[in-house]
């Protein structure tokens, strides 16, 4: 298709087409570098974000013998720390929390139904029985954690006899058996789901699973006795 030599001199130069090609190459290079940077920063957020959790259990309405009264309450405060060294902003989106109290009466065979239903922790010293007093999961709307920074969020979980007698009464029974609220051990577990800002969720219902999960980070702290 190339023109004969004599004819070529009468034809126009293809310089404009080459210029368009170089401009398009520059645009594609910029898009590719942008895509690589975007992807790398999302993967960095996945790889470097850490979550730590601290829990404090408080009892409201304790009588002189150290027992929880019927009008009392158990208040667990979870302090969730998020360290985000990545260049992306993270937003805490969903929080799941479970709190177990070591079930002395069940372990001693005094409550067979709870002994069957309790979650167990098998260790070298034998099986320990835990009653699940808290089981919460909810969406969260808190200020985001900026790039290269960290944030701490406090969440309070309340258990009392008015709102949830089914769970509160066993806790009273357990603390009473232990001789006071300070007796039984607690086991806490928290699951935090963080959304990476600027990653649109997969819009198609048939989207591949990795496209649904790439925009969020999940971290767990503690032992999940249900798993």
């Amino acid at each position, binding site marked *: 298709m190339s023109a004969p030599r004599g004819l070529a001199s009468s034809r126009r130069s293809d310089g404009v087409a080459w210029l368009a090609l170089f401009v398009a190459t520059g645009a*594609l290079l910029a898009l590719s570098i942008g*895509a690589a940077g975007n*992807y790398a920063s999302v993967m960095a957020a996945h790889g470097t974000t850490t979550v730590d959790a601290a829990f404090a259990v408080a009892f409201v309405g304790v009588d002189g013998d150290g027992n929880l009264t019927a009008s009392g309450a158990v208040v667990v405060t979870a302090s969730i720390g998020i360290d985000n060294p990545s260049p992306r902003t993270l937003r805490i989106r969903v929080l799941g929390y479970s709190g177990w109290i070591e079930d002395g009466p069940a372990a001693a065979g005094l409550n067979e139904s709870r002994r069957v239903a309790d979650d167990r922790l098998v260790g070298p010293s034998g099986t320990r029985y835990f009653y699940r007093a808290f089981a919460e999961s909810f969406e969260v709307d808190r200020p985001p954690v900026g790039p290269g920074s960290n944030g701490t969020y406090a969440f309070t979980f309340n258990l009392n006899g008015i709102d949830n007698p089914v769970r509160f009464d066993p806790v009273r029974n357990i603390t009473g058996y232990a001789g006071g609220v300070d007796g039984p051990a607690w086991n806490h577990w928290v699951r935090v789901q963080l959304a990476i800002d600027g*990653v649109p969720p997969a819009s198609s219902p048939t989207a591949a699973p990795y496209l649904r999960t790439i925009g969020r980070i999940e971290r767990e702290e503690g032992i999940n006795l249900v798993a």
Partner: protein
Amino acid sequence: MSRDVRDRLRRLPRILIIAGFLGLSLGYAVFESVFPNVGFPAAGEASLPLLLAVLAGAGFLAGLVADDLRLAILHAFLSFPIALVVVSLLAVSPVLTGYVELTSDDLVFYVLRLGLPIYLVALPAYAVLGVAGLAAREHLGLRSTPFRAWLRRLQHK
């Protein structure tokens, strides 16, 4: 060195530039199709019309600067290994930053496998649009000029 070999060597940079351009556009289209929500621009779903427009535009432009049909086909075929390199570099970019430790070969094969439909679309797109570009080149009466010479002429005008 024979004149024929010298002529081929002279053409080599042009061939590599055009094939590199096609490879870059194919590599970018593959990456965007596999990771639309972490690409650039990020979107909830890969836009097939946009990806086809990128491939079609690149194919047409490559045809417009190709010397003949034989070379246009050669550019299209050469673009594939270049695209593999481009998409592999994009896939391992998180590892290159040092932030993340991942098995690079797993990532590369993942992206290559998921991008297969785009590779399959690219070859006919490059062939058809390349021929269309060549036809437009003939219609416009364009001839090959060294790019620097063309720039010099442009400055003199």
